[in-house]
């Protein structure tokens, strides 16, 4: 771990005023690992754990506003989340471990970075970690990596679970900038695709911006599913995950985790829900460019969608 300065702030305003050139740290469940391995070497850390932003409030339109620092455990256990957004509770509980969820925050979870093995070994080329060094994954081991939304520069997958549920819920990320200016980013646009230019932007955040909250529209109703497929029963990243909200009339929303640099969804796929898993998968994976190692993810995702649809059908009857 390289030497860094550490400041603790007690409000979002104070964080923003001190955020220039700094990394904000909340739960630290991802960032501190990266610092120990020197995957990132921030010179300044601003600890926002005492900056408030830790409440879950009902909004005027009947939705929820989740403070950036609400812990994953608290969010998954919130009665309003369990009642109105069970896909979110299930997705959160499918991730990490109890200890990590106690520590991890809503905003931090959105900011978690890829689990590409080449990103994690600083001796190997990785454009995301060291822009311009190359992407070792291209001809290497890509079993866990993305099959769509990638580029020649990067095959990273977004490893998150919570964000996949937020995608089908149409969550909106609230951010504030150093000047105090606030704006909102739809969850669909929050995670960036690698594209063809370096450095690779991962998040739709400008320098110094801070996530202050995530808002949810009113509960969508329907039956909620989060199905995560992984190599062991717990404490593993998704090979493929499916978040879905399916209504009684067979319409709904669907998003995939583990297959792309962002939670993966499309209007065409949602429109195909009544046509079954194959049609949904065809829509979702149009233009996919899998590697030899991870081509199975498309078949696996199709089968997992079928499992969810079967469960939804069972729930209706």
């Amino acid at each position: 771990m390289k030497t860094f300065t550490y400041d603790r702030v007690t409000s979002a305003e104070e964080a923003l005023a001190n955020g220039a050139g700094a990394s904000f740290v909340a739960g630290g469940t991802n960032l501190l690992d990266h610092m120990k391995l020197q995957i990132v070497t921030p010179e300044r850390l601003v600890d926002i754990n005492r900056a408030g932003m830790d409440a879950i409030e009902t909004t005027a339109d009947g939705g929820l506003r989740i403070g950036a620092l609400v812990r994953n455990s608290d969010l998954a256990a919130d009665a309003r989340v369990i009642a109105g957004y069970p896909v979110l509770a299930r997705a959160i509980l499918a991730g990490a471990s109890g200890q990590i969820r106690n520590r991890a925050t809503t905003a931090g979870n959105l900011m978690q970075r890829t689990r590409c093995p080449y990103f994690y070994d600083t001796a190997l080329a990785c454009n995301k970690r060291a822009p311009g060094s190359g992407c070792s994954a291209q001809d290497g081991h890509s079993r866990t990596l993305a099959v769509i939304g990638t580029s020649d520069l990067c095959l990273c997958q977004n490893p998150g679970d919570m964000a996949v549920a937020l995608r089908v819920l149409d969550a909106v990320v609230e951010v504030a900038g150093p000047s105090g200016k606030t704006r909102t980013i739809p969850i669909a646009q929050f995670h960036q695709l690698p594209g063809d230019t370096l450095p690779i932007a991962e998040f739709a955040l400008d320098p110094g911006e801070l996530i202050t909250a995530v808002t949810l529209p009113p509960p969508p109703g329907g039956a909620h599913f989060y199905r995560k497929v992984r190599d062991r029963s717990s404490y593993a990243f998704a090979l493929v995950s499916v978040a879905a909200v399916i209504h009684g009339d067979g319409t709904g929303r669907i998003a995939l985790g583990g297959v792309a640099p962002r939670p993966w969804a499309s209007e065409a796929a949602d429109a195909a829900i009544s046509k079954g898993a194959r049609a949904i998968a065809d829509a979702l994976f149009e233009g996919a460019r899998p590697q030899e190692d991870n081509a199975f993810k498309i078949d696996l995702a199709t089968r997992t969608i079928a499992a969810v649809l079967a469960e939804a059908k069972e729930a209706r009857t």
Partner: protein
Amino acid sequence: MKFDAPIGDTPIDNGRVVGRPHSRVEGPLKVTGRATYAAEWHEDLPAMLYGAIVPATIAKGTVKAVDPQAARQSPGVVEVLTFEDIDIHGTSSGRTVKMVGGPEVQHYHQALGIVIAETFEQARAAAALVHFEYEVGAGSFSLDGGRADAKVCGAYGGPGETRLGDFEAAFEAGEVRFDAEYRTGAHSPAMIEPFASIAQWQGDDLMLWTSNQMIAGTRGSMASMLRLDEERVRIFSPYVGGGFGAKLWANADAILAAIAAKKVGRPVKVVMPRGLIFNNTINRPETIQRLRIAARADGTIEAFGHEGWSGNVKGGNPESTVMASRSVYAGPNRLMADHMAHLDLPEGNAVRAPGDAVGSIAVEIAMDEMAEKLGLDPIEFRVINDSQVDPSKPEKTFTNRHLVRCLRDGAERFGWGDRMAPGTRRDGKWLIGMGVATAYRAALRHASGAAVRLETNGRITVETDMTDIGTGSYTILAQTAGEMLGVSVDRVDVRLGDSRFPVSAGSGGQWGASSSTSGLYVACVNLRRSIAERLSMDAERVEFEGGEVRSGNRVCSLLDAVAGGPVEAEGKFDFAQSDTKAFGTFGAHFVEVGVDAYTGEVRVRRMLAVCSAGRILNPVSARSQVIGAMTWGVGAALSEKLEVDERYGCFLNHDLALYEVPVHADIPHQDVVFLDDLDPHGNPMKAHGVGELGLCGVGGAIANAVYNATGTRLRKVPMMVEDIIPHLPEPV
């Protein structure tokens, strides 16, 4: 005591203490953080410095230039030592590669130096600043690529190829023949406690706190590498958080801590970060195995062939998979051969149940496949081919082989009769299947010594350099002394892992429990004699029970014997190799799995192991050993595999997020049954070990269960979802 004839009745047979389910005597220390592990000796060591290993970031090649300047100038750095400053004689005993490489690099993450700093963080930061300029060499990293040039090679001094009868002719003539190839993945021992050492020099004497399985060998090895007399080195390793073979010797942390501490004149602590463990230390190499079996139509095996291929560094040992078939199933015509390819991957070595752990997977799948070909129940096929003599050395008879009982007893308990035809049993979305496998592991023995003392307060002190690597050594040694001297376990103080104590067998190869308690048994026999003499009793007719010593009508307290001071005795278990007896442990594994019909995820539903390993010294610590081993088997079958990047020559998944060992949720239900028989032939405890037996065959039983669930036969482990879904019915 040279042990070469079966033993009769002994005080151990009373079974008042030994064989009882005592929980770990050191358990309270461990759960309250008072059991001090190697990296935790803070208070005793003022002015301690921290060392960070500097690893090579190429797999093969030469260091052309070293630039330590930036590291030297980094905050808190006291010293930077690279291979140019380090002189090590030879390497660690039992290892092949050098503990510090350079200028030649032998494998990825080989240590090339160490940075010593005031804090751990400073050392780690500076280690990243040591710059090496490499000339990268061409290495071989692929077993498939190296296979053609692989040579027949024995492991650890054993034979490379063994033959009996005429295998080729008998196989050709076989009525029913089977020939298939299997693959198993490379494994990391992945113990919880990382490699850790603290070195302190007291004049010319080295004190080394380290995490180690074999104290005496490590002491000799440290002395040799440092060109010291053994007497100058003291090793202390009282608690070990798992070793699984990787701590059988001194590793880079130990030798670098010693060299660094000498250089800076202060104690130095070196803990190997998790990310280095996978490539810096040892692994169980990937294997390819060919099984050829020919049998008569009634199921009698006529020819059994098992050939294995694995890769290792030059001068290393092959992963001897054929061990898993040499001594198990009958068959008068046999061919068993290990082949080794020279690869430049990190060193393969003795990871838990070396050879057998993965050899048994291939053998047990093959037996399942052959049984089906013969139209026989897999258990019946195994029973038909049981052998009371070692099939490869028929002049040797097993002293305690109850494989058939294990299989039959297990079948009854597990409900084997409910097993259905492949691919026909379903529970909702789950395809359900059952599998069985034989467990076999040799019952190795090693000479082992101990000292035992009756203190003036009536307590018993046991001292031996034996280690407790989480296995329960403290407890079974306390039980042994308690039984022999007629006191309860709470009156016995066991002190382990100190090189000042008598040399023991150490922990490895599942020999530790039986060998170390046998050494203590001998010491106790000697102590009983001394106590009897002090009490003027006839040593041959004396009984120890309830803190009393009795002979005829005379009863004394143990305290009467120590009126003049403590009584102490040493003893050593030793034995002559037998030309006529074979020692083995046997068992049967039963597994039920569910395979998700949509996603191909395999989840174990329940497991049963029935084990025969002589006297079970402590049924709870033995059970812990077996369920831990069974869990290893689940990992080998379903998730554990070191991924080789053949471009860089490294194991890529070098952390516990990407190298996936089973978690609690993967292990819903495990049963262990011990036959608890007695084998008076091997050692005075009439006991053998179980810590590796519990692993052997498990992966095969799981693969066989997956076949029974799905109707799909997989000949590789780990079995991943992508291997399974192409064979599942289309769900859409």
